[in-house]
């Protein structure tokens, strides 16, 4: 059911909703949230290039828009998720892509991303064990030499962790349980001293590259999309500033792993909140940075169209997260750039634009 276009300035991340990597051009990067009575809603920006946001009941979306097979499947998956935070949405998105419904390249990228998640989880777990042992003065060269994936290494690890638990005055089982909780929360962000940055830290770095790319493009390419690119760079910069603070705070808390284990109830909630905030902050950006990378191979006209496409789905920060009102600022830019937007497929006739879908799938193959 279509509730009509509304002016939209969400207060919180949850109200803004999580971006969904649909492949139907009209739905690409639309946001999903739990609305009244926990019912799922999708927020579709500027239908037919108008202003405002349409709030559509989740179950009505397939009746309203001719969706790709990938999106029908993803739609069915998301409705089965209990929550719709970026984590759950990503899990569903990767599952849909792994099925091959966004093409073989996206399927391969999804499989790679899932493997990397698993490797990152194992690596983070291992590094956290080392941190705990270091915190209680039990660093063991023998254990490092044996490696954690050998029988001998695991025996030594268990032995040392039991002693670490005693030192922390807690049961070894509880120590392992807490370790698993911290590892699960930390893996997506990554540890400060990890040899491989976590997915969200990489996302923050990609965002810096995107900001630079937008600034360079606005300066070097004469186009009426230049002010739009400048605005994109400003939003990216603002997000980076907040992201770096959150990341710094998160790493400081994880570094102090001894106090974290001891003052568990409060400290863990804070760590988990910061990790979730990182995920929300970067939600929707991986598609944008990936789309800009894909556009590098195109001519300036196509790039201008991409800049305008990205403006439409820019993850503006909710009011409570930012001192600056980007929603208001974006209206000025919107008035200026209306002329050169790329037409989406005609949603009334349901005619699919296979080139637009292909562009979205190319981004998915790069940034699943």
């Amino acid at each position, binding site marked *: 059911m279509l509730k009509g276009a509304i002016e939209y300035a969400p207060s919180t991340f949850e109200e803004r909703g999580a971006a969904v990597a649909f492949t139907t051009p009209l739905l690409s990067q639309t946001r999903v949230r739990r609305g009244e009575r926990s019912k799922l809603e999708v927020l579709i920006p500027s239908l037919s290039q108008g202003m405002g946001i349409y709030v559509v009941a989740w179950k009505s979306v397939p009746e309203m828009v*001719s*969706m*790709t*097979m990938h999106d*029908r*499947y993803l739609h*069915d998956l998301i409705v*089965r998720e209990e929550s719709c935070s970026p984590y759950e949405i990503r899990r569903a998105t990767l599952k849909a892509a792994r*099925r*091959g*419904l966004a*093409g*073989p*390249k996206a*399927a*391969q990228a999804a499989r790679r991303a899932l493997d990397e998640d698993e490797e990152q989880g194992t690596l983070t777990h291992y590094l956290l064990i080392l941190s705990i042992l270091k915190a209680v003065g039990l660093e063991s060269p023998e254990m490092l030499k044996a490696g954690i994936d050998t029988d001998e290494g695991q025996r030594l690890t268990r032995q040392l962790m039991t002693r670490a638990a005693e030192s922390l005055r807690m049961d070894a089982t509880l120590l392992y349980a807490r370790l698993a909780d911290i590892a699960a929360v930390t893996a997506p962000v990554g540890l400060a001293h990890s040899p491989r940055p976590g997915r969200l830290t990489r996302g923050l770095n990609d965002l810096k590259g995107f900001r630079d790319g937008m600034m360079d493009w606005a300066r070097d390419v*004469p186009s009426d999309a230049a002010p739009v690119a400048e605005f994109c760079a400003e939003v990216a910069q603002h997000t980076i500033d907040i992201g770096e603070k959150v990341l710094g705070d998160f790493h400081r808390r994880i570094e102090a792993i001894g106090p974290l284990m001891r003052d568990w109830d409060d400290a863990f909630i804070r760590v988990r909140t910061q990790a979730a905030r990182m995920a929300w902050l970067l939600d929707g950006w991986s598609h944008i940075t990936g789309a800009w990378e894909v556009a590098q191979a195109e*001519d*300036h*006209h*196509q790039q201008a169209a991409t800049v305008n496409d990205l403006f439409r789905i820019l993850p503006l920060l909710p009011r409570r997260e930012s001192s600056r009102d980007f929603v208001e600022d974006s209206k000025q830019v919107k008035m200026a750039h209306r002329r050169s937007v790329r037409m989406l497929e005609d949603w009334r006739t*349901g005619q*699919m634009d*296979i080139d637009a879908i*292909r562009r979205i799938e190319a981004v998915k193959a790069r940034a699943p």
Partner: protein
Amino acid sequence: MTGPADGQGGGDRLPGLESRLFDIPEDKFIEVVRLLERVRDHPDVRQTFAAIRPRLVQVRPSRRPTLKRVLCMPFEDVLESFNGLDVPVGRIERRVIDPVWRLVTECGDRALIDQLDRQVQETAPGNLNALRNIGRRLWPMAAQAVRGAVGAAGEPDTGRQALWRVLQGDEEMRRQLLDVAAFLEIGLTIESLKDTLAPKPLAVLDDPHVDAIEQAAQAVARQSAGLVYYLLLVAASRMANPADLLTVLNDLDFGKARREQPAIFAQLSGLVVTNLEERSARLESKDGGKGAGTGPGAAAVAIAPEEAVAIAERLVASIDTTSAVMDVLADPVYRERLDAVKATVRSMVAGAVLDTAPAGILTAVPAPAANGRPAPVDEDAQAAAEDHARALRRCEGLAGALGLHEPLKDAMASMEKGLTARAQALLADYPKAAGDPDDAETAEMNLFYALRLLELVAGPAKADRLRTAIMAATGEFAEE
């Protein structure tokens, strides 16, 4: 360097290098090219450069500037390409470069050439401004030298002798030498216009581009009205669809060449048509002269379906624009020539996209195996089939212009039927795999890939029936 300078005996080391130069990383390739450039006049090295040209075109390392390269700058856009199907309008053949260089060095101002040569050697690669400053002095002198040698009467003996050696009765070469002289005469204006008409190929001709062409045409007309045509050749060659230039040509103010404007228009229009004919002739030669009706696979060997559609889209856009402009000239001969070009494009599309669709699309969906286990997923075959299906869909945009409505409709219907039948066969076989998790996953991937092909060919509404059937068979979203 191995072997004698005639290149006969030294062929064992460099040819090996040539093949390796296609495999090494890009940065290493650029490094090797830089080293080879220092000895580029050696016959073996020249042969190596010729062999690795495809990669040079692709990587485009900033080459060490030479005076010969500076000489070519004003007409580089109209030089024929090394390969591919796109032919620049009013092209100059590459075989003309060496004779031009010989004429300039033999008949031109030797002292100036030596001086400029030294300057070029001190110029860093990529320093376009410095090279243009050298060109500013080189091009007018070179134009005069070429014209002097080719010109009919009163030329100095040295010119006549040099020309005799160069031409040896080759009239086509003589014509192109005169064209080169014209490009050289307006070298600076061409270089400045290139900056505006960038990057090449220019997809759309916007107002700033049209203004720049008009101003450049006026500047050239002040030099000589006859040179405006050459400036426009460069402009047309920088555009993705050269015929677009024709659409704005009559609205331009050529200044002192105003009176010549109709003649220039007719001359350029004729050239655009000839250019289309040349491009379609290349299609036929690439196609091996085979088109529709020669059976599956005949043309696809040469042209991939997506490439075929992209070429056809460009050509059809050019034909349409040219047809519209040619109505002004009301010349039936042009109409016939354009129709012939269209017929060539039609048979290329039919041969490369429609006839090959069964082999290109349907075979990606595996038949159920006799042993009851699902066939392994072949993602390369799937990707190729998806490209083919997209090409087929893109033909919808060409069908009207090329008269392909019926064959396309038939091909689409046959693909829809074939894919549905193959998917149903996989679906019927699915229960055999369902017991084993790995087999079930493989069988489901095959089903989802078949679903995707059906979606690409027939659209989501028709594919949705298969999706519902797959979900019912796998029970994935069954209500708990």
